[in-house]
């Protein structure tokens, strides 16, 4: 049996349907992520699971039991809030002890478990400090420790890394993965940052306008987006409007708008339309008329723009037929920000099996 199950959960605010018939199941020990743009309903789902909001329709089950009649304080579910919500009048140690106190544990047991948990998040020496005396990253760890200290069945995390700077965020991502593995508590994580979702999760539910667009493991979400929204939302993507055609050599191909016939792993009937999602890193870029001849699709073009982010540079290429394509190249030569200048003649190419065709 799944640990957490949502069956056709709906939540309306007036005329606005924040969550529409959402169903999914989270397995015990899983790191499950709800990913989507702001306003997609992910936080509303989190609040309903925590008990701060009630669904207008559908059921939420924990260990097979309906949660509807259980108030938040009685649910074995804890939340790490976006703002951390640490109690400003309590020291770090007392913040972490809070859920244990509420559970009425004996003082000795509380002290032991607070010490243990603070050790786990490397904060043992800060137990006597107050929240206003510690850094953002440390507050984050205190909130995690407080959420985990009495071993809830489920820990909900509402964009917990949003307030941290990039470096710290990456550090915390690694720590979150490690911590979740160590304590074995099931995590339901909410974020709008797709790279965070891809890095952390066992499975991701991509949400849009109150619905789940796709639910899968990160590599399949990234590699095989099920629809335009997912293809567009996750990572950068060249979206090529296309129609499935019969090729002369007998296999199926795609007729891409503005590109003509291309070789692609089409999976639909000839004549149907869709979009080919082609990641920039799947598109190779070469100087002039060079290029690997074993690539199935080759087009000449001109570099229009580039974006240097350190490890890689993304080039905007305008093909001779006017079509725009992004191609990515790793900066493997040190000290070089780019291999091509604006206006350089280049050839872009990609293999037939690259990209993923999304039928309409």
């Amino acid at each position, binding site marked *: 049996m799944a640990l957490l199950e949502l069956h056709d959960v709906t939540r309306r605010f007036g005329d606005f349907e924040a969550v529409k018939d959402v169903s999914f199941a989270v397995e015990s020990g899983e790191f499950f992520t709800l990913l989507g743009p702001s306003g997609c309903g992910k936080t509303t789902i989190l609040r309903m699971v925590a008990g701060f909001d009630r669904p207008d329709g559908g059921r939420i089950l924990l260990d097979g039991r309906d949660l509807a009649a259980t108030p938040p304080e009685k649910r074995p579910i804890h939340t790490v809030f976006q*703002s951390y919500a640490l109690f400003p009048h309590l020291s770090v140690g007392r913040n972490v002890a809070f859920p244990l106190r509420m559970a009425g544990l004996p003082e000795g047991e509380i002290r032991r478990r607070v010490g243990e948990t603070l050790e786990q998040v490397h904060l043992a020496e800060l137990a006597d400090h107050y929240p206003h005396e510690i850094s953002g990253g440390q507050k984050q760890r205190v909130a995690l420790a407080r959420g985990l200290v009495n071993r809830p069945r489920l820990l909900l995390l509402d964009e917990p890394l949003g307030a941290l700077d990039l470096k710290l965020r990456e550090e915390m991502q690694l720590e979150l993965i490690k911590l979740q593995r160590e304590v074995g508590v099931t995590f339901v994580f909410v974020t709008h940052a797709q790279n965070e979702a891809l890095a952390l999760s066992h499975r991701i539910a991509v949400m849009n306008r109150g619905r789940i667009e796709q639910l899968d493991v990160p590599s399949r979400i990234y590699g095989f987006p099920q629809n335009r929204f997912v293809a567009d939302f996750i990572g950068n993507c060249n979206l090529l409007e296309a129609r499935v055609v019969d090729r002369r050599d007998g296999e199926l191909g795609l007729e891409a708008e503005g590109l003509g016939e291309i070789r692609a792993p089409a999976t639909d009937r000839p004549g149907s339309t869709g979009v080919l999602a082609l990641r920039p890193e799947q598109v190779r870029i070469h100087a002039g008329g060079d290029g690997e001849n074993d690539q199935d699709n080759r087009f000449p073009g001109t570099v229009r723009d580039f974006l240097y982010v350190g490890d890689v540079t993304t080039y905007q290429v305008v093909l001779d037929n006017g079509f725009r394509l992004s191609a990515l190249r790793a900066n493997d030569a040190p000290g070089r920000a780019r291999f091509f200048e604006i206006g350089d003649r280049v050839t872009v190419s990609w293999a037939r099996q690259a990209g993923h065709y999304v039928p309409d």
Partner: protein
Amino acid sequence: MSRTEDRLSRWAVTAPPTLFLLAFFLVPALIVVLASFQYPGEFGGLAPLADPGDGSEHGLTLENYRFYFSDFLFTEILLRSFLVAAASTLICLVLAYPVAWLIARSPKQHRDLLVLLVILPFASNFLIRVYAWMIILGPQAGLAQAVNGLLGAFGLAPVSLLFSPFAVLVGMVYVHLPFMILPLYTNLEKHDPVLLDAAQDLGANAWQRFWRVTWPLSLPGVFSGSALVFIPVLGMFAIPDILGGTRDMLIGNLIKDQFLGVRDWPFGATLSIVLTLCVLGLAGLAAWAGKGGRHG
């Protein structure tokens, strides 16, 4: 900026408030201290410090303090005043807390109106409002009739609500209630509601959420509200004068009588000094306890 200029500008900033405190606080306080060691003048006021040469009392004396300690009655009045002030503060706190909480939790666009309603009584004269309570508590009014009717039903003798410690307490609480509500509201309004969500999420029931989160976070408001009620009640003489009986005299009445009735300024000054020292001692104790509480 040069060092002299630096010093000059610092002076420009700190001098005015320093002068203000000197002129309007320290100097008057020292005058009262001095007066408490002087003899009373023949027709009120103070006897001269220098010998006038006619054999009358002059100079400094401990007589006023000796007189204060010669009769326990004065200390008894002082203690009763502290008791009334403490009771008024406590009742105000109990009444004001839910009001302040409700205002703080009401929709933002209603809050200003509700705060206005709290301070609206100040628009009418203080004495008129206290006299109004004379009517409300008077023997002809419905309240007294109802209470005495009930007492009569149990075969008990009728009581007078007016001119009693009860009436004094009612007046004190009524007049000072806004001074408790406002600082509490200012404090409670600033509380981040997510803290209560977090507490509930971590297993705290409604009572625990109040006692473990809201109450400790509201302590600064509780302290300032209590000070704003306790100290004025301690010195209040009009309310006991109007609503109290002859035995409900408080230290404020006693001091006022020394200056305006008996015309014994030095003894009035002595009583003032004793009262001030007691308040300062109490404030120091509270500060010390508050400091200890934070780290304990």
